[in-house]
């Protein structure tokens, strides 16, 4: 574990260095914009994958926390009374509390019913944002920009500084999620995903474990929302609409659920695709749809999962005597097929 931590930290630093070097090598503002977008949506997708890939909870309502983070942060900053780090902490804590309340109800339900109730809560929060016009500005969102007063000598009003800040926060969040992913807690969640009955026989408090990861995922999603609010200098009800959740799910699937960084790869691919498809055609729905079909029906799993499987298969072929790394080499399989409800 200890060695793994050092390796993760090294890789994290390398990743951060890359994120920081890229815009320096290609000093073009639109590259920075693009990467911030990947960071925000990548973080959203990563946080959702804690539920989907790790725990087997398919949430259709994850954007609710993305929006909550963005709105709490935006409102606090517009009030002008708090600094950026304080507003961020408050937004994270507020969202965690909301996720705790909603999660306490949701995690008791199974499979498709869990999906539906998360969807219902998301619609509920979206309609609150829309109707509470005095506070949220309704469909027009938080108007007039979100002020970014300097703190500790850091001025997020500078696009370059904002980018560095987002990159650092992103890598920190990834490291944190990585620790969860590798911790005993993470392996308990995998057991719950694969066989909840067994987990509960072994004395695992399934509901409490699920609730824990639900709150963590919600909090991480709100961090993504804060980054997005900082970037667009506003918060909008569309952040909490089901399409945003849908897109996050799509990113996960595009990248893969079982490789830790799969969702980020998915977010990157989707943004790249989106970027170019919207430039060259106004029928991006058609192009995107066909592509989804190709991936789902062709690869039958996310791109990163596919590559990982392919590589581990090649390794196995190269070492015909098998068992090169013990139990850890088992190819990642998608969560057990859901049993059909007749």
């Amino acid at each position, binding site marked *: 574990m200890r060695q793994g931590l050092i390796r993760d930290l090294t890789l994290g630093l390398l990743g951060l260095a890359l994120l920081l070097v890229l815009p320096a090598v290609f000093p073009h503002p639109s590259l920075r914009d693009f990467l911030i977008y990947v960071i925000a949506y990548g973080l959203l997708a990563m946080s959702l994958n804690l539920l989907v890939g790790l725990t087997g909870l398919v949430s259709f309502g994850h954007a609710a926390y993305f929006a909550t983070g963005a709105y709490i942060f935006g409102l606090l900053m517009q009030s002008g009374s708090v600094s950026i780090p304080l507003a961020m902490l408050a937004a994270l804590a507020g969202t965690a509390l909301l996720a705790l309340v909603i999660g306490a109800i949701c995690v008791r*339900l199974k499979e498709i019913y869990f999906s539906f109730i998360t969807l219902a809560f998301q619609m509920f929060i979206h309609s609150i944002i829309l109707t509470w016009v005095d506070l949220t500005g309704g469909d027009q969102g938080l108007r007039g920009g979100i002020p970014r007063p300097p703190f500790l000598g850091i001025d997020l009003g500078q696009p370059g500084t904002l980018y560095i800040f987002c990159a650092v926060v992103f890598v920190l969040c990834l490291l944190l999620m990585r620790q969860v992913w590798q911790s005993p807690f993470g392996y308990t969640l995998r057991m719950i995903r694969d066989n909840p009955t067994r987990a509960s026989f072994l004395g695992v408090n399934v509901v409490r474990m699920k609730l824990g990861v639900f709150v963590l995922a919600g909090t991480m999603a709100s961090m993504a929302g804060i980054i997005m609010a900082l970037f667009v200098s506003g918060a909008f009800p569309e952040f909490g609409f089901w399409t945003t959740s849908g897109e996050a799910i799509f990113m996960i699937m595009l990248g893969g659920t079982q490789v830790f960084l799969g969702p980020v790869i998915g977010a990157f691919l989707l943004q790249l695709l989106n970027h170019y498809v919207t430039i060259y055609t106004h029928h991006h729905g058609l192009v995107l749809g066909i592509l989804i079909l190709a991936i789902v029906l062709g690869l039958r799993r996310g791109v990163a999962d596919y590559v990982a499987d392919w590589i581990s298969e090649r390794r196995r072929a190269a070492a015909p005597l098998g068992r090169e790394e013990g139990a850890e080499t088992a190819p990642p399989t998608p969560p057990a097929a859901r049993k059909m409800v007749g």
Partner: protein
Amino acid sequence: MNLDVLAGCMTTAACAVTQVSTGLIVGMLLFLVASGLSLIFGVLGVVNFAHGVFYMLGAYFAFVTYEQTGSFLLALLAGASGAGLAGIVFERFFMSRVYGQDLLMQLLVCYAAILICDDLVKIIFGADYKLMGMPESFATAPVELAGGFIPGYYIFMLAMALGVGAALWLGINRTRLGKIIRALAINPQMVGALGINTRLLYAGVFGLGCLLAGLAGALAAPVRTLTPGMGLSVLIESFIVTVIGGMGSIPGALIAAILIGLTRAFGAIGFPLFVDGLMFALMGLVLILRPSGLLGAKVS
């Protein structure tokens, strides 16, 4: 909140008749869409998130047929059967490939279908608003009943929806084919072992579900605007109906659809600002207290 007015309305024949009929009108179209959704889930065990697409296709097919032939009956037939055929194609070539895989794969295939069909409709028919127009024979004054008013077209619509609902129920519960379909829902391997072509049946059931959505779209085409993406709001409402009624239960869908319809109709009188919230609250409550819905089979 205006409960006095609500009480007043319920005790006045004219108001009660109009609002009950309103509830049925809103509810029955919803029932057609939701029953298709429920049927597909009940037999195939998949959630057809693309169900709204078939509602849209039904409406556009009916629109085109009516423009070309001027016959409302043909338009209804074309809308329903066109959507049904599209459903069979979708099931055979796409959906059937992700059976037994996880929910997300099914969701993505449906998401792709929505994106593609919405764009195709925009390319073929344009982005502007379309309306089929009321057939001559229905362009009459609303029927007066105990002081309340019901438009002739809506009476026809209600009769159609009820008729189809009854036929569906009888077909599933009283015929040999219905018996096979029910068996298919419970034990597909056994049905297959008896020499019955289950793949054909799956496609047929999926097509039937889509046909129902298409029929709803065709029935709505004279009074609701046709635009690309029109299936979305109907999809969400029919999901609520399906969840409340119980996934897989057609009588459940009927009860829930009428319940939602009446909630809307009388809610508009008594608590207009709270109607949408109430629908979500109702769905949440059902999910918490009885996840399988009012008439759904118990979740295993």
